[in-house]
């Protein structure tokens, strides 16, 4: 019988929404699972995790874990995994999960399937489907080791809803420090403060390309306001300094799958499309009718964005 340990992502004493995707994956395996919450404030955050049908919620709330440092977190996850006889670790493929999971896999001697978007369970055999080649192919991968580590895509594993009940909470002590932990020091987290919804979780995303130049915010903000959207950008716009780097959508930026993705002045480079093509509806506005973005857009408008976007804002404000 398989037993899965889901590692929750705790930030400032709260459970990050990404965690519920890993729980959704664990449920799909159709076998018992537990959740491990570690970090400063994990004790209070664990209350958010008890109504999901987990056998146990393990809590490691320790001052040494106040900021995420892989070299401190991985040994503690490994300790819980071994002490309680788990065979699978699941995390969501956020920056946190992608940093932690491979180190953990190496520590456990486990095979690692990263960034999976589907799982198939046939008796004792599991295969995982993962996007590769900038989203242009899916590979079905099997893990050959007894222990398995998996990171799951938030865009394809919809957040699990609470199922009621109350899991038992068990406190665990952090693992003994490893030498590597003494050689990494967390200095600070510089978060951009924005009133807008988070890019990864927004229902609508308005993204702009290099064509917007210095008028990136001036043109796009009214549209984002009208749609209640998060703002995104192409790599070219970020590289040119027209948009801050944290807005980047694409392979090295965020992967998004909103209900509506509006691409403004974006030509549609492969690495950008890799980050947004799972969106439900894609709208593209570009003056170049041959731009590759039109090959994947549900609705394309060939127009000068500096004229069309203000018009669009006006039209959206008009009552339907």
């Amino acid at each position, binding site marked *: 019988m398989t037993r899965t340990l889901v590692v929750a992502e705790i930030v400032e004493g709260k459970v990050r929404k990404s965690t519920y995707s890993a729980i959704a994956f664990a449920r799909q395996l159709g076998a018992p699972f537990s959740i491990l919450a570690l970090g400063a404030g994990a004790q209070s955050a664990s209350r958010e995790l008890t109504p999901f049908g987990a056998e146990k919620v393990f809590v490691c709330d320790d001052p040494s874990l106040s900021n995420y440092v892989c070299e401190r977190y991985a040994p503690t996850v490994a300790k819980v995994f071994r002490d309680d006889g788990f065979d699978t670790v699941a995390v969501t493929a956020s920056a946190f999960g992608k940093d932690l999971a491979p180190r953990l896999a190496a520590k456990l001697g486990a095979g690692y399937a990263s960034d999976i978007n589907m799982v198939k369970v046939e008796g004792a055999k599991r295969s995982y489907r993962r996007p590769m080649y900038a989203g242009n192919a899916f590979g079905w991968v099997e893990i050959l080791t007894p222990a398995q580590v998996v990171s799951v895509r938030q865009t394809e594993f919809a957040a699990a809803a609470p199922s009621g009940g109350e899991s038992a909470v068990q406190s665990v002590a952090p693992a003994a420090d490893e030498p590597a932990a003494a050689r*990494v020091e967390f200095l600070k987290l510089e978060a951009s403060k924005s009133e807008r919804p988070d890019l990864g979780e927004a229902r609508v995303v308005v993204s702009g390309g290099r064509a917007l130049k210095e008028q990136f915010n001036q043109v796009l903000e009214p549209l984002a306001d009208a749609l209640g959207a998060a703002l995104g950008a192409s790599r070219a716009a970020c590289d040119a300094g027209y948009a801050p780097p944290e807005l980047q959508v694409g392979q*090295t930026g965020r992967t998004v799958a909103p209900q509506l993705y509006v691409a403004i002045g974006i030509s549609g480079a492969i690495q950008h499309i890799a980050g947004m093509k799972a969106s439900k509806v894609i709208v593209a506005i570009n003056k170049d009718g041959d731009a590759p973005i*039109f090959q994947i*857009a549900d609705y394309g408008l060939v127009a000068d964005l500096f004229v069309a976007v203000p018009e669009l804002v006006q039209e959206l404000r008009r009552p339907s």
Partner: protein
Amino acid sequence: MKILVAVKRVADPENLNKIRLSAQGKIDTTGLEPKPSPYDEYALEAALRLTENGANPKQRLGEVVVVTFGPKEADSMLRAMLGTGADRAIRVDATDDGLDSDVVARGLAAIVGEEKPDLVLLGYQQAEHESNAVGQMLAEHLGWPQATFAGSIQSEDDKALVVGREVEGATAQVRVTLPAVVTVIDKIVHPKSVRSKTTASAHAYADGVRFAALMAIMAAKKKPLTEKKLADVAAGATPGVRYAAAELPPKRAAGVKVKDVKDLVGRLRTEAKVIG
């Protein structure tokens, strides 16, 4: 500072939408030109910047060794990198069939044992399998600290690095004491992203990676390129994963071109029903 840069040869990342499935259901990249994985090229650029004074880049202040796991054909990629400024190259003879992230990480760990670099730099993921795992696994095998998703690196007297890690909507700044493993993203080749211990903080590089001058390419033919056997660096290591099948994702069909803004909003409201 001595830096080992791990690089991978991949099918042209700019044309991956042209891949097909073979009759056996395998991913077929025939016709795509082999290129270095872009994030690994960025890692090489970062390594060169860390081993020079930006104001006087001709004078080398350290050693950069590039290493790849691949067939004989990958030598031309390594030669080009020697032309760009790397000092030596190592190719571990291997084909992709015998490799996964962990086998590569174990092989790299063995090479680190021989080469004793202060730092291993590589792209955060390679452009084909995109596993984003080798750097973290290597750090674990070595017992070294890791800093992934690096968008900036600043050397503190080559004893430690201050690394800006780009994590969803934020930058996490960490200090790692060397030796360490650092994986980089595209932002690392921005003009002021990397600062060696001697480069002035005001120095701005040209955006992107440097290209080799013809003279340098000629000179690079004399630089050492050694070949190793996979069995010698990763004895007993076997892949922990197996790719059983592949498929192409459903193609997103091109939709309609709308005639104007009014038409667009009307369709979003009544047809797609994604706005109120």
